[in-house]
């Protein structure tokens, strides 16, 4: 015992001395030895009480009490292993889920970025909601206008993404690259781990080609090879350039795009072209900025808006009012996490619900147990335990339960975080390097304490006012109305929370199902797609298309291959490559006043493309090899219906009118004759809609380079021979990402699948706990009403009626839970809807499904106790207690 200045034995010695003094005095007054001593003792009062008071004056009495209570608690819990295991597991689940979710939220949403002074680093966004685009990025002239006038930012950094084929570093590969100006890395506040980053000496058209490798690319594909610095590579895009690798970037958030390299502008001929430099509507650059010292985000935003408004006034032709062009700025950190935020907060809410369910369940277990312990508590109270002491005892027990729960929960949270992080990385790259830290333990412990205190105050103590005679004398359980009422409230809480989770889960599952079984119009299972990017270095247009023609011919000769074709993009995976599409018009089409021309997706395809994908041509014919010289197109059915309603579209003309087309090589605005109409094919959206598409022969327009192979055999064994064929034709040609369209679709749908999975697991856990809860409450109610059932049976009640009664009770609880859950869920969703724009109210079907599942589960859960009620042995029931 530390902290006490005086030993109890010393105190006892003093009391003994006192009594001796006193008895001596009394003896002097004439009392006998015996009388004097007992009188001295009497006048001292209760020695034990004095000792107790001495003991209690110690500062650590609470600790002594707690230790004793904990010891008692351990014994009590060990005597009820079933109860203990159920309670600890349930709590572990609730606490573990919350701790894991919290560290995920903290890691993704709250952790600062590695970028230096990241709270000064902003992302600038241009939106044109009228065009249906939230982030149209910027064009170089726009950036120049902003740079010229904005004073609240010290520096702008620009980043645009482009695809390169890289030759000279291992196998030739197609990679994604960021092209940046000289200020980019300084604005981003990033550092190299090797070599140097790009700076002003790499800026502009006259610098030497320089490349920085991203950490991920360097450490995985290049196996952290330090000798790559100083090597020269050839980068091919719209023309080939050579560049030197100057450094490796530190691990950082790859935003706006995950790229393998970051290069300066001279490596990309496109960036130096007039298209890029003078095209005001040629937008492909992301813009970052650093707040000037003392400037708030608000001030910078205000200035950006003013400057931007002037810019719109100066160039009315480039910004149609209907498109609703706007500028906004926010911290890069917020921008990076914006997509994950809603999802994470929803998940956090889900885990909070699981916590509520877990606590309710354990509260129910504890209630049931305290009722059985009524006698014990009454005896303790009668022996002088104050109600404070009883509460303390209960608190010690619930602390033990929660302590065990938190230990188990935190241990299980570790792998849970890993799984969740992999899941969340689909939404935010920040989740990739998530680590488990002490906050998780802190959150767990905090939750455990909350739970312990709540649980300790759940049971009713034997009241000191009311007579405890009955419980003392009989020592058996008598259920009071208030206990069953409380239990029912907890059971209903569980059902309500489970209902919300189930409704959420079924909403995600319904979305997934509707996506998975949406008819794509393509034979996805038998189509293999490969990236064989266009390599233009040292080749004429004729040579490039000749290469693909030969490749198609050779692959078609492989056994099992039905049809081979070249296209522009792999459906869904490459979605968004061409933005909202390009404006076009058709013969005789008159646009309504104030309207813009319609936008259509432009695709370059080889003959046989529609056959390979299994999409029918409804009118006219497919391309053939003689379509090289006349500008011809095939249009989708939706274009035909829009531009030539009720008329034959074939042999009419389509003309591109979009201001951007003059920047696209090989493109012009001459009228193109329609030679065919295809069925609609939506390669942009996972839920297919009528996507207006215009197809051009790949001899006239060469983009992308995707080869589609239709086969009646197993597609994947074909990948090796196809790769060999192409490599034999050109050793430098990348062949990548071979997959059937079915698998591409599955890959694109992964986030949806994961949503369903995570919510499904949450809901399943909640449902399991709730079922156990309902079943437990009813089992308890049945066992405490054994005598009542016995009497009823003895009086001639049909067992079937008792059975129905108990099941009815369960169903009623479930129904009440569903009503409460629906009401609170609706309120929560409405509330959340006012914060998150992308919050959707679940439709009737998943809600009904969730309600049905819960009701069924409740009825099933009531079966067992109901059967027991109906089978009560009349004789035994009447004789027991």
């Amino acid at each position: 015992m530390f902290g006490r200045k005086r030993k109890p034995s010393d105190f006892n010695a003093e009391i003994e001395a006192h009594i001796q003094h006193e008895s001596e005095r009394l003896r002097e007054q004439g009392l006998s030895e015996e009388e004097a001593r007992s009188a001295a003792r009497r006048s001292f009062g209760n020695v034990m009480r004095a000792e107790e008071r001495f003991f209690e004056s110690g500062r650590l009495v609470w600790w002594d009490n707690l230790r004793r209570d904990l010891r008692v608690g351990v014994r009590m819990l060990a005597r009820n292993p079933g109860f203990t295991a159920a309670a600890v597991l349930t709590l572990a689940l609730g606490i573990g889920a919350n701790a894991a979710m919290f560290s995920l939220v903290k890691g993704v949403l709250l952790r600062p970025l590695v970028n230096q002074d990241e709270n000064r680093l902003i992302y600038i966004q241009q939106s044109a909601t009228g065009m249906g685009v939230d982030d149209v990025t910027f064009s170089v002239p726009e950036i120049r206008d902003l740079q010229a006038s904005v004073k609240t930012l010290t520096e702008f950094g620009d980043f645009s993404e482009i695809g390169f084929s890289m030759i000279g570093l291992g196998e030739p590969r197609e990679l994604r690259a960021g092209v940046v100006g000289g200020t980019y890395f300084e604005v981003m506040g990033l550092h190299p781990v090797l070599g140097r980053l790009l700076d002003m000496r790499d800026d502009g058209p006259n610098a030497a080609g320089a490349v920085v490798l991203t950490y991920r690319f360097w450490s995985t594909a290049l196996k952290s090879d330090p000798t790559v610095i100083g090597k020269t590579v050839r980068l091919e895009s719209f023309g080939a350039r050579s560049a030197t690798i100057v450094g490796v970037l530190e691990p950082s958030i790859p935003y706006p795009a995950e790229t393998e390299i970051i290069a300066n502008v001279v490596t990309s001929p496109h960036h130096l072209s007039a298209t890029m430099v003078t095209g005001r509507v040629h937008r492909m650059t992301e813009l970052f900025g650093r707040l000037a010292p003392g400037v708030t985000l608000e001030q910078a935003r205000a200035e950006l808006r003013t400057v931007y408004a002037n810019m719109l006034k100066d160039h009315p032709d480039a910004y149609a009012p209907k498109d609703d062009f706007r500028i906004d700025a926010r911290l890069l950190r917020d921008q990076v996490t914006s997509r994950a935020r809603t999802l994470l907060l929803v998940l956090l809410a889900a885990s909070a619900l699981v916590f509520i369910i877990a606590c309710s369940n354990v509260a129910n277990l504890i209630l049931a147990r305290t009722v059985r312990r009524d006698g014990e508590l009454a005896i303790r109270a009668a022996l002088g335990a104050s109600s404070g002491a009883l509460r303390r005892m209960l608190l010690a027990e619930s602390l033990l339960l929660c302590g065990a729960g938190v230990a188990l929960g935190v241990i299980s949270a570790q792998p849970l975080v890993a799984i969740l992080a992999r899941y969340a990385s689909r939404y935010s790259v920040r989740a990739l390097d998530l680590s488990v830290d002490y906050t998780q333990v802190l959150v767990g412990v905090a939750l455990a304490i909350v739970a312990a205190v709540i649980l300790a105050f759940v049971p009713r103590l034997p009241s000191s006012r009311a007579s405890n005679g009955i419980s003392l004398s009989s020592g058996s359980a008598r259920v009071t109305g208030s206990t069953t009422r409380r239990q029912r409230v907890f059971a209903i809480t569980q059902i309500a929370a489970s209902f919300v989770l189930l409704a959420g889960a079924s909403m995600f599952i319904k979305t997934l199902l509707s996506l998975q079984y949406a008819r794509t119009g393509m034979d996805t299972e038998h189509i293999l797609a490969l990236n064989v990017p266009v390599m233009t270095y040292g080749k004429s247009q004729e040579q490039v298309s000749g290469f693909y023609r030969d490749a198609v011919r050779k692959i078609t000769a492989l056994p099992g291959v039905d049809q081979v074709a070249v296209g522009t993009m792999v459906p869904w995976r490459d979605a968004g490559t061409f933005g909202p599409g390009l404006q076009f018009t058709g013969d005789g089409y008159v646009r309504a006043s104030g309207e813009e021309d319609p936008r259509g997706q432009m695709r370059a395809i080889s003959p046989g493309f529609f056959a390979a994908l299994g999409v029918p041509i409804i009118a006219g014919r497919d391309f053939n090899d003689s379509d090289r010289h006349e500008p011809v197109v095939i249009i989708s059915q939706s274009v035909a219906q829009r531009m030539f309603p009720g008329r034959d579209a074939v042999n009419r003309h389509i003309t591109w009118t979009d201001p951007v087309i003059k920047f696209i090589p090989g493109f012009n605005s001459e009228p193109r004759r329609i030679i065919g109409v295809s069925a609609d094919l939506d390669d942009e959206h996972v839920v297919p809609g009528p996507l207006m598409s215009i197809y051009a022969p790949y001899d006239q327009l060469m983009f992308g380079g995707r080869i589609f192979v239709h086969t009646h055999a197993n597609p994947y064994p074909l990948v090796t021979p196809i790769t060999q064929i192409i490599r034999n034709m050109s050793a430098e040609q990348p062949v990548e990402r071979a997959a059937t369209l079915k698998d591409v679709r599955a890959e694109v749908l992964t986030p949806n699948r994961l949503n369903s999975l995570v919510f499904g697991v949450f809901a399943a856990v909640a449902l399991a706990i709730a079922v156990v809860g309902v079943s437990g409450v009813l089992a308890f109610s049945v066992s405490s009403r054994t005598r009542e059932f016995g009497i009823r049976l003895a009086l001639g009640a049909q067992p079937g009626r008792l059975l129905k009664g108990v099941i009815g009770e369960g169903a009623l609880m479930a129904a009440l839970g569903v009503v409460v859950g629906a009401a609170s869920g609706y309120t929560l969703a409405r509330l959340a809807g006012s914060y998150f724009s992308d919050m959707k109210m679940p439709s009737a079907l998943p809600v009904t499904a969730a309600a049905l599942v819960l009701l069924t589960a409740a009825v099933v859960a009531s079966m067992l106790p109901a059967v027991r009620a109906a089978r009560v042995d009349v004789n035994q029931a009447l004789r027991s207690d």
Partner: protein
Amino acid sequence: MQEVYLRLTSYPNTRILSGDMSTQDVKERLALLQGTLDLLILRILVVGSQHGQGIARAIQETSEEELLVEHGALYPALQRLEERGWISAKWGTSSNNRAARFYSLTTSGRKQLLKETTKWKRLAAAIGRILEPEEGEG
């Protein structure tokens, strides 16, 4: 918490032993204000160091047996005063050659006594002023 009882008869354990209070008992016991025992102990120790039993006797004798210290309450009070540093204690030998724990006043204890005495006198005087007229009427 310690209580000092004003008792006319000395049956200190009546309440504890019987678990039942007679109305007579309640009338006889007048609890003094909390903290009074501390004041009395400090006052007794001004004369010189003394052991627990001696302090109790001194209070009883000085008050002409009006105040009877419940000995069981005395020691926790001594303990508390010691912890506050107002008194210090040391084992010694009493006049009749027995081991006893002797308490003596510390400097801060002396200051505390002065403060408490002043406060007590003011309180007593104030209560007296209020009670006087009523007594006159009765």
